[in-house]
């Protein structure tokens, strides 16, 4: 049984039009997924729907057999899904340590939170060196590490990353992807939205091309990368946007 099922979900913002138009997807436990597509395709909307920042107008989101469509974000976090939004979404006037502590906000056991913080610092040693610095003083790459590290405090089953390479230098992007690789090796299910389509598909095992709110293509990443139709229709277009 898939760990996460998206069943004919339609969704949009406020009274605006549908962004997702009956999207269906099945995600297997422990696999990594990259969702690509042109701007406005509904990629970020999909992640917001899964983590409860937005609720579907119709359709269902099923996680481990439970309908989580209308749960709050904190309730979804408790079930093991974490989200790292675009632009890092940190608390700029809190220190690195405070940001990491906020990652364990829903954990009652404060000692456990401190232990998890040490584990995250082992993974990203720079966060330990900068633990007393305000988040807003970190570089883009360090902020992304902090955003990912903060979500790892909960040791989620599924981590969703919205544009993890956005605005970062190529060498920093590699560092971020290396750390995401470690998460994959630990058995975590990874769902990534990536404008840098080649990078994202190179990393992920499975790809999905989203366009106008529905999944146009799905399949193993290398198949998507090598499909001439997709290259012509989406990858070329995406690369132009990315430039």
């Amino acid at each position, binding site marked *: 049984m898939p760990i996460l099922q998206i069943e004919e979900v339609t969704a949009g913002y406020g009274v605006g039009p549908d962004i997702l138009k009956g999207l269906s997807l099945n995600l297997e436990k422990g696999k990594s997924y990259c969702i690509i597509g042109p701007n406005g395709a509904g990629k970020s909307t999909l992640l917001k729907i899964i983590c409860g920042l937005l609720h579907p107008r119709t359709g269902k989101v099923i996680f481990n057999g439970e309908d989580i469509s209308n749960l709050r974000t904190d309730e979804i976090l408790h079930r093991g899904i974490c989200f790292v939004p675009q632009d890092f*979404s940190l608390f700029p006037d809190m220190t690195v340590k405070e940001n990491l502590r906020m990652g364990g906000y829903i954990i009652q056991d404060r000692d456990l939170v401190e232990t998890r913080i040490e584990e995250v610092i082992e993974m990203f040693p720079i966060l330990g060196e900068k633990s007393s610095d305000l988040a807003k003083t970190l570089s883009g790459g360090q902020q992304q590490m902090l955003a990912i590290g903060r979500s790892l405090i909960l040791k989620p089953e599924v981590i969703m990353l919205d544009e993890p390479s956005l605005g970062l230098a190529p060498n920093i992007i590699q560092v971020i992807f290396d750390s995401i690789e470690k998460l994959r090796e630990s058995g975590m299910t990874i769902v990534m939205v990536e404008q840098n389509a080649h990078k994202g598909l190179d990393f992920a095992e499975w790809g999905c091309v989203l366009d106008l709110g529905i999944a146009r293509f799905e399949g193993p990443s290398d198949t998507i990368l090598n499909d001439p139709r997709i290259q012509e229709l989406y990858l070329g277009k995406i690369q132009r946007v990315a430039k």
Partner: protein
Amino acid sequence: MTDSTIIFQLLVIGVTIGGVYALMASGLTIIFGVMKIVNLAHAALMMIASFITYFAFTNYGLDPILSVIITIPVMYLVGVIVYKVFFGSLEKDARFGELTVLLTFSIALIIEGTLGYFFTNTLRTVSVPYSTSSFWIGDVFLPKGQLYATLLSIALIISLWAFLRYSKLGNAIRATMQNSTAAQVVGVNIEKASVVAFGIGIAMGGAAGSLTTYMFPFYPSKHWEWIGILLSLIVLGGMGSLAGSFVGAILLSVTATFVSHFFGPTWSVATFFLALFIILLFRPQGLFGKKMEVK
């Protein structure tokens, strides 16, 4: 009195009034910081606390400083009820900002009208012995009433700061003030943080409403003057910044005291509005605020 003594005296008076202004502004700024509500009813809600204090004093002889023990919890509850009744259903509205300005303006009018109907627009004040006596340090006097009010105000602001800094709920409120999406992503229940922050903001205003009863005469319509002053304080400090509202309150209070001394008391209130005008013109983000991005 020498010139330096006069200047020191004016500084003392400015700072001792500024502490109470800071208490009023702290409530307004925390509400704006968390919910982006410009609460035009803040001073009107303060007036409710002033009337509670006045009647507790006239009927039971309760000291206005001690009456904060009553007005803080009562106004917290009033804040929670006002939020749940008026703002809860608007949270997801795309025009939340505009609607809350109109809504808080209406709430201010309703409170003013209700207080005016029951208690008339008569000027009232609470007369306690310390409101007219002073400590003397050489040639400089420290008005006892203002000093006590400012010390209590500072104690309350420090308590608020400690709550925001060290408690779990306080951190949730602080996180929401800094980045509400990120707060949601880590599991903060934004609605609960908003209700508590609104209640705390009104409770702080309530405490200030009690303390001003023996410093300034009050009447239901007085809130318009207060809200103008408060908006200039928090705009100077930077909307949503607790430290900024404190610094803004002290700076403007001292300036107004100097203006009052050198140009006459009539110009004192004008200082706040002139400051508001200048700040919005040259540094709209205030001293401690961040520039807002229009997306």
